[in-house]
Every structure is written in C-alpha cells, then in structure tokens.
C-alpha cells in the first residue's frame, strides 16, 4: 500500500512537471511582450531592456524555465501582473468559490444521477426507462452556457425567484473562514446568511450539475444492465434471493465500480464547466480568473492556476483509484 502511494505520488510529480512545461512554454511563445505590457507603450527602449533584464526575460528560455521551476518549488509563482498580489494568493482566493460550486454540482449529480440510473436500469425498455433516458440524453446534449442563461432567464428574470448572479447579496457577507460562502455562513450561524448563500448557489450548481448528472445516470443504467446479465447474478437468483436484494447486492454493488471511475472523470468536466458557469453567473472563481488572466496575458497567474488545477486533478484521481480498491477486492489484494 505504501509502495503504491509512493508510486502514485511519483506519478503526480511527473504530471505536474509535464503541465508546468506545457504551460510555461505556451505562455512564453505568446505574442506580445510582457515588459511592454507592464510599462505601457510609451516606455523607452532602455527602460524596457532593464525591466526585461530584471525579470530575466533576456535569458535563454530554458534558463528562464529553470529559474521558474526553482521559484515554483519554493511556492513562488511571481506577482500577478494585474492585481499586484502574489499569483498563488489570487488563485487560492478564487479556488474556494469554484470548489464550493463543483462540490455542490457533484453532490447533485451523484445523489440524483445514481438513483435515476438504477430506476431506469432495472426496467430496461419500459416507459419510465425511455422517459428518463430521453431526459438524460437532452441533459448531455445541453450546451452548459445556454442552459445557464435559460435558467437565469426563467428563475432570475421572469419568475424573479433567484438572484441572477454573484456570490452573496451586496454588502452581506459572512466572515471569511474557508472562502466557501455556504460553509462560512454556517459557521457564522446566522440563518439569513445561510439562506442567501444557498439561494445564490442554486442556479450555478444546477447548471453545472446537469451534464455530469445525465452522464452518471446513463453510465449507471448501462452498467446495471451489463452486470445484470452476468453469471453471478443468475447464481444469486438460483439461491432464491428476492429480486430487490439481487439488484442491490449483486448488480448495483458491482456496477458501482465503473460508476465511481466515471464520477472521478467528471472532475475535468466540472472544472471546464465551471469556467463557463462562473462567466454566466459572475462568480469570482478560479475558472473565471483563468480566463481573465489568459485574456490579459497575466502569465504568472495562468501558470499558478494551471499547476494548481493539475495538482487538484491528479489528487482527486488518486482518491478515486483508492476508492476503486475499496470497492473491488480484485484490485485491493493484487
């Protein structure tokens, strides 16, 4: 087990290294010159040259990368070119917003998606199955930015039930502890704050949850069907087990193994979706920060954000793999 973990952490380092290479070199072939960007168009050539020297931009790119790597290993990604904060600090401020959104969406997707898949999978080709599967097919085909807008239009605009964007009502904030509004509100213990934070989270979470929900439902259904035709299920029935228990113990349990993998894979989807969701609902999350930084060539933030996201990504995959081991004894003991 320890060996396995060590190996996986090794892989993690490797992936992070790869991502740092990709991000660093793409950012440095960007058209446009950082020094000009910082000093403005009117800077003299001498000023520019001195700044470039100061930033190490006059060095060969491999040397630059080496220094970059050295700094990164010390947790220093440089300063944001826009906010003048440490790049990593900007990333860490934005991250809880995205984390809260992604967790809420994932929770919705799993809590609704798995049962929907079970219901459909135990009645293949029935009316309910057809209805649910049509609905999930609509779900996976939905452009997330359009869905977000439509939900906003309906619940925010026409019905006016929910806010049309932002994290919290202006001027109202729980003291920042985790950076996640719902949790901070819970800590503050003020019911009004909790209520508002949930109201603001609802639409973005539903928007972001739709596609993963539909995918989880579909994969659960198809795995239930696949497992349901296996020999050991016939054995269970031959033992005289009631159908309900056959489904729960011998079909669902085995079907969950691939479902968990898919849930793990949803993370990439969630983070991609978060970029668009945050744009639509004006949330100051990591996705939006990345887009803005890319658009304004704020490469320290892009680098910090990319590496941070890759780190989270690999970490989650590790957790998924460990869960896999818990569910499947064939992997656990080999």
């Amino acid at each position, binding site marked *: 087990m320890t*060996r*396995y973990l*060590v190996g996986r952490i090794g892989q993690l380092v490797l992936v992070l290294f790869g991502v740092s290479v990709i991000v660093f070199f793409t950012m440095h072939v960007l058209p446009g010159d950082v020094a000009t960007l910082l000093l403005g168009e009117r800077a003299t050539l001498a000023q520019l040259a001195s700044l470039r020297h100061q930033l190490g931009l006059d060095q060969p790119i491999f040397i630059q990368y080496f220094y970059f790597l050295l700094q990164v290993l010390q947790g220093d990604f440089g300063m944001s070119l826009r906010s003048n904060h440490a790049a990593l600090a900007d990333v860490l401020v934005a991250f809880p917003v995205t984390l809260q959104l992604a967790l809420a969406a994932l929770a919705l997707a799993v809590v609704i998606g798995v049962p929907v898949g079970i219901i459909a999978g135990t009645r293949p080709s029935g009316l309910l199955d057809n209805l649910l599967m049509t609905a999930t097919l609509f779900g996976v085909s939905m452009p997330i930015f359009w869905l977000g807008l439509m939900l906003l239009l309906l619940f925010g605009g026409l019905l006016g039930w929910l806010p049309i964007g932002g994290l919290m009502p202006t001027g109202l904030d729980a003291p920042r502890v985790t950076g996640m509004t719902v949790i901070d509100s819970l800590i503050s213990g003020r019911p009004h704050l909790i209520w508002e934070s949930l109201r603001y989270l609802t639409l973005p979470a539903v928007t972001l949850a739709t596609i993963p929900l539909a995918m989880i439902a579909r994969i659960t259904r198809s795995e239930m069907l696949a497992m349901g035709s296996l020999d050991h299920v016939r054995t269970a029935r031959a033992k005289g087990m009631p159908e309900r228990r056959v489904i729960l113990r011998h079909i669902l349990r085995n079907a969950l193994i691939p479902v968990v993998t898919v849930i793990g894979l949803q993370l990439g989807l969630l983070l991609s979706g978060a970029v668009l969701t945050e744009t639509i609902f004006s949330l100051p999350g990591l996705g939006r920060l990345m887009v803005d930084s890319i658009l304004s060539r704020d490469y320290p933030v892009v680098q910090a954000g990319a590496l941070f996201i890759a780190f989270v990504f690999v970490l989650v995959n590790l957790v998924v793999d460990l869960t896999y081991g818990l569910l499947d004894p064939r992997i656990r003991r080999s």
Partner: protein
Amino acid sequence: MTALLEVAELVKHFPTKGSLFRAGPPLQAVAGVSFTVKRGEVLGLVGESGSGKSTLGNMVLRLDQPTAGRIVFDGQDITHVPDSALGAFRRRAQPIFQDPYGSLDPRMTVEQIVAEALVIHRLAQGRKAIRDQAAGLLELVGLNASQLSRYPHQFSGGQRQRIGIARAMAVKPELIVADEAVSALDVSIQAQIVNLLRDLQRRLGLAMIFISHDLAVVEYIADRVAVLYLGRIMEIAPARAIVRTPKHPYTEALLSAVPEPDPGRGRKRIVLQGELPSPTAPPSGCVFRTRCAYAISDCAKVVPELLEVAPGHRAACIRTGIL
C-alpha cells in the same frame, strides 16, 4: 531420418506484477524442455492448465520469444532470428488455433483469409490465380469453393476450423503446431476435424505438434506423446506406451482421471491430492512430488532427469521402478 525440429532446454519466464518498482518472481511457464520432431512425425503435448504446453507451442512458432534455450529448425538455429527475417521459416511452420471464433479476422472474406499467405509470400500472382488457389485450399479441407466470398460469421464452428486449417495449408508447410485445435468443438464435429488433420498429415507427410489436454485424442493422432507438468516434461514415449505402460506417477494419475464412455469398466482411480503449485514458486526437487502418492524424502532434494526407461521411452522420476 533427421529431426525437422529440435528444441533444447527451452525456457520461458513471464514477468509478474509485483510492487511498483520491483517485478514479482517470474512465472516459469516453461522450465527447460527439450524434444525433437522428425519429418512426418506427430508429437503430442499433453498437460493440464498451467503446464506450459501452449507457451511451448508459441515459442516453437516464434510467436513468443524464449527466455533461454534453442530452437533449431531443419538444421538452422532460429531462436534469435529477428521477426523480419523469419520469412522462410514462416512458410514452413504454421499454427492451427483453438478458438474457431477468434482465429479468423471478422472483417475479411474467406478468400482474403486463406489467400493472405499467398499475397504475403507472393506465391500466386494475379486475382484469378489467387482465387483459384484459395478455392483449391477450401476443397482440400472439405469446404465448397463457392463459399469464398463469405465472411467468417456465416460459418459454424467446425467450418471455421476448416478455414483455419486451409489458411495454414496455403504455404505448404512442413510443420504444423495445432494448439487445442479440436477442444472447442462439439463432439460430433471434433471427430471430423481430427480425421481431417490426420488425413492431411499423412497425405502431405507433415510433421505436427498436437497440443491438447485430452489424452484420448492425443493418443489417437500422435506417434509420440510428451506429458507436461508445470512447464517440464514428465514423460515422453510412443503414444501406445504412454497409455499402456506409463512410467511416471503423474501420467498414471492423468490416465486414470479420463472419464470413459463405458459404465461397465471398473477401474482404479488415482485422485490427485492438493492443488497445482504456483508456477512462480515451484517445489524443490521433483515439481510433482507435492501431489505424488509415491513421493519420498529424496524427491524434494533431487531434480529428476528425463532418463530412458525403455527404448524410446523416457521418464523424469527417481522411482520409475515402482510403477
């Protein structure tokens, strides 16, 4: 008669998954096997699962690379000839596989399958010549030439096996390695294919390595039989001698376990005790001793040599005398 194929001290280890940085102990699929096959001779390889018989067959055909040992075909050592230079050998030695469903490319017509060798080795030029030869091959194995443009899924298991045989015959091979070639077939079809193989072998003077777990089929088709256990030859002898006067306790047990369609026949059954040892950690000395009714303490110390116990009959047991 000189040997067409000579295999010496052939070894195959497969790596096992250990931990991340260190491989596990190697799985010894084949652990030092030597034998020869003469032109026109059928050598049967018998063994249960885990005996290494299929790996052995694959190595002889150079579909698996041996870990150690030597394969000499018609006087030429082919053990380390690179794949790209094996063309000549490939035209002289051919496999026949077990699974009639997996051994034919589902996307090719029967003609394409049978004629692939003709195309690769340029044995026939032009569409018509190729088609004629393919038709001839189909007829050789008892199929109708009118079926050339059909796909494999349109045939039954037995017919597919015939197509597989036709494909092997396309290069006019001298050696056939048939790996469980009739095991997956229904009883009534099995006999047809056995007859076909035996007929082709005799008519064309083929040498054949016939691999099977079914002793009765092997005895019927083979001139000599080698009994394998955990990647080693326990006994090798003329087919009749193996069945009538086995000299190795394992052969004896194997023979006694074969169910015979003859309810009146009262016979002594030797039930083997225990489990097949792991091929990653075989027992010391004689690998069969852990399940052998005749084992003595010496069996754990000495690796028995394959010694001649009667003319042409060799067994690897230090206690052959007791049988």
